[in-house]
């Protein structure tokens, strides 16, 4: 059993070692960790902070090959404090799985899960303190007697604490002798079990009293002896004691860790739940104001991810639109040169190109979201044509706003309006035919053909995307043509008008959504009250006793 390596973070460190079975093990030494390890292998550290400093010197030794560690004195090590800290920790844990019965009334309940045979649980604590003392004293004697070493090692099979005691003792000793120690311990174990077949309880009482009152040194080894005897006499298979103990300790450790993990998880769930309710409240509020989803009411939960993404991008586009508008406004007011204004106007055109491109992407995954206008404000949605504005309407609106304007420009605008109207008409008729064909597919045919019918209908529905795309294409071309017909200054004014128009439509929508509705409610209430009165009277008659 040799130390393999050790690392030393600030207040905890891991020691890797190979146990007697040759398995690489790790033991963590920190205030919050119990010691897991085998006889003479696990390392202990002071759990109380007061020992951090002195222990640091010890830890430094650990970074080097283990041999240096062995030369450290154990006198800096106070097992008493260590015991107390671990006791506190054990008590703080939730009740362990009752793997083992028999929790005798204990002066110091160190290990409630200790099995029946270890009646000396209370004694363990007391003996621990004694053991601690003994190891302290023992450490002074260590180099002299192997017997005392054996005594200390005897503590280990009975409790992790004793392991701590003995293991640190081990550290203080020559580690090359660790193997020998282990063998010795086993020998002594068997020896003691053979020699002293005394009942546990009697031993317990004697040892307990002895341990608490006895002076250091002498009584401790004896109590250790007796503890060992008690352990030996009750266990069937002495060879397995060490392994069982180790296993038990590991089980406890694992149970503790899983409890902590469960606690953390539950806390996480609680916080997420709170966050969720808060989010829901926020959404309710936003929905009531008709801002976010345009008051889609019951359909809110069914919004697809593509639609949600598009809504977000549209919201961002609206912010950009606002920025572009103010640029245009300031550009016009500041009487920028034509070149500079051209840059601003072209920027606005590409801004619109961007939204058409976004709509094209969204149409691929959720055409219904676009065509029903759930992304737009309510007023816009009311006058929606094929998932957006109607180009001819826009031009009609603009012709009144655009002056001065040349004859040629007037003709250009007129023909633009004319051609956009024709194109709109053509697309509308195409969509009508799609609608009719869909009706025929869904309505007609026997029910038996259900799936076939649906497949055909699905195929027809997929044409919707094409229509929305063509409509957007029409809008885009209209804006580009406007830009071509008009001068830079006219175009700037024109786009400003367009932007303001839709901004006003959106403002109208939000005003409408947030308008007070008491007038409506009072009418309802008056109707209600009359009926209520009629209702109340009969009920009062029915229940005269009331």
């Amino acid at each position, binding site marked *: 059993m040799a130390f393999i390596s050790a690392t030393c973070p600030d207040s905890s460190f891991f020691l890797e070692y190979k146990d007697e079975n040759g398995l690489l093990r790790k033991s963590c030494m920190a205030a919050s960790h119990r010691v897991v390890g085998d006889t003479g292998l696990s390392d202990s550290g002071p759990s109380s902070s007061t020992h951090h400093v002195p222990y640091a010197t010890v830890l430094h030794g650990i970074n080097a090959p283990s041999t240096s560690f062995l030369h450290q004195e154990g006198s800096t090590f106070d097992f008493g404090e260590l015991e107390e800290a671990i006791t506190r920790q054990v008590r703080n844990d939730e009740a362990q799985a009752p793997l083992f019965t028999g929790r005798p009334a204990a002066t110091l309940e160190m290990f409630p899960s200790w099995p029946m045979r270890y009646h000396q649980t209370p004694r363990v604590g007391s003996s621990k303190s004694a053991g601690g003392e003994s190891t302290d004293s023992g450490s002074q004697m260590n180099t002299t007697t192997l017997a005392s070493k054996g005594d200390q090692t005897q503590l280990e099979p009975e409790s992790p604490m004793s392991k701590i005691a003995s293991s640190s003792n081990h550290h203080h000793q020559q580690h090359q002798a660790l193997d020998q120690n282990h063998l010795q311990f086993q020998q002594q174990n068997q020896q003691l079990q053979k020699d002293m077949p005394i009942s546990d309880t009697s031993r317990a009482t004697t040892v307990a009293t002895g341990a608490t009152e006895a002076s250091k040194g002498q009584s401790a080894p004896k109590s250790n002896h007796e503890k060992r005897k008690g352990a030996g006499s009750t266990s069937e298979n002495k060879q397995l004691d060490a392994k069982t103990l180790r296993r038990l300790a590991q089980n406890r450790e694992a149970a503790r860790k899983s409890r902590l993990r469960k606690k953390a998880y539950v806390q996480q769930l609680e916080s997420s739940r709170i966050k969720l309710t808060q989010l829901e409240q926020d959404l309710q509020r936003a929905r009531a104001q008709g801002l976010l989803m345009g008051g889609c009411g019951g359909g809110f939960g069914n919004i697809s991810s593509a639609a949600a993404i598009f809504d977000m991008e549209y919201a961002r586009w609206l912010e950009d639109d606002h920025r572009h508008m103010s640029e245009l406004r300031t550009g016009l007011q500041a009487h920028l040169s034509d070149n500079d204004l051209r840059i601003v106007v072209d920027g606005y055109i590409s801004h619109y190109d961007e939204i058409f491109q976004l709509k094209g992407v969204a149409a691929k995954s959720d055409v219904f979201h676009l065509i029903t206008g759930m992304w737009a404000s309510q007023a816009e949605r009311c006058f929606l044509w094929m998932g957006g504005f109607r180009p001819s309407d826009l031009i009609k609106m603009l012709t009144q706003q655009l002056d001065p304007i040349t004859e040629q420009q007037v003709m*250009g605008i007129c023909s633009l309006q004319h*051609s956009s109207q024709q194109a709109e*008409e053509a697309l509308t008729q*195409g969509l009508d035919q799609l609608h009719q064909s869909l009706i025929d597919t869904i309505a007609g045919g026997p029910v038996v053909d259900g799936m076939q019918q649906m497949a055909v209908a699905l195929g027809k529905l997929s*044409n919707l995307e094409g229509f929305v795309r063509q409509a957007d294409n*029409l809008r885009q071309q*209209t804006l580009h*043509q406007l830009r071509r017909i008009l001068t830079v200054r006219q175009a700037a004014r024109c786009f400003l008008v367009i932007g303001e128009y839709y901004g006003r439509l959106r403002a109208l929508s939000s005003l409408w959504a947030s308008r007070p509705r008491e007038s409506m409610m009072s009418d309802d209430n008056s109707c209600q009250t009359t009926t209520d009165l009629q209702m109340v009277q009969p009920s009062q008659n029915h229940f005269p006793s009331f």
Partner: protein
Amino acid sequence: MQYQTEHYQAESWGYYMPMRSMHMADPLERVGRLVSKSAVVIFSVSSCCMCHALKRLFCGMGVNPTVYELDQDPRGKEIERALMRLLGSSSAVPVVFVGGKLIGAMDRVMASHINGSLVPLLKEAGALWL
């Protein structure tokens, strides 16, 4: 609007072409032949709604296009494939030829109409008289 079916007759190619090779004529050549026959030629599929929209567009302008319904043509599939290659897109129809020249699919037709280039082309081809 005139709906025409292909007449399988010997063409005046300058040399004798057996009936069989007529059937194996390059579909693109067929297309070329067809579009040169009329001022405005639309290749369409009878069940396609976008094709219907395109037809309505030309009719609304007062144009009388020649429509070839590829689903009603025995060799329509070949023409469809050839048109797909020509357009470089996955859908062959609807597609418009004016004066023997390719205008394009629906989006190009609409763009050219909006920017005012379609009507002069139609007038040039003799499809529109103002």
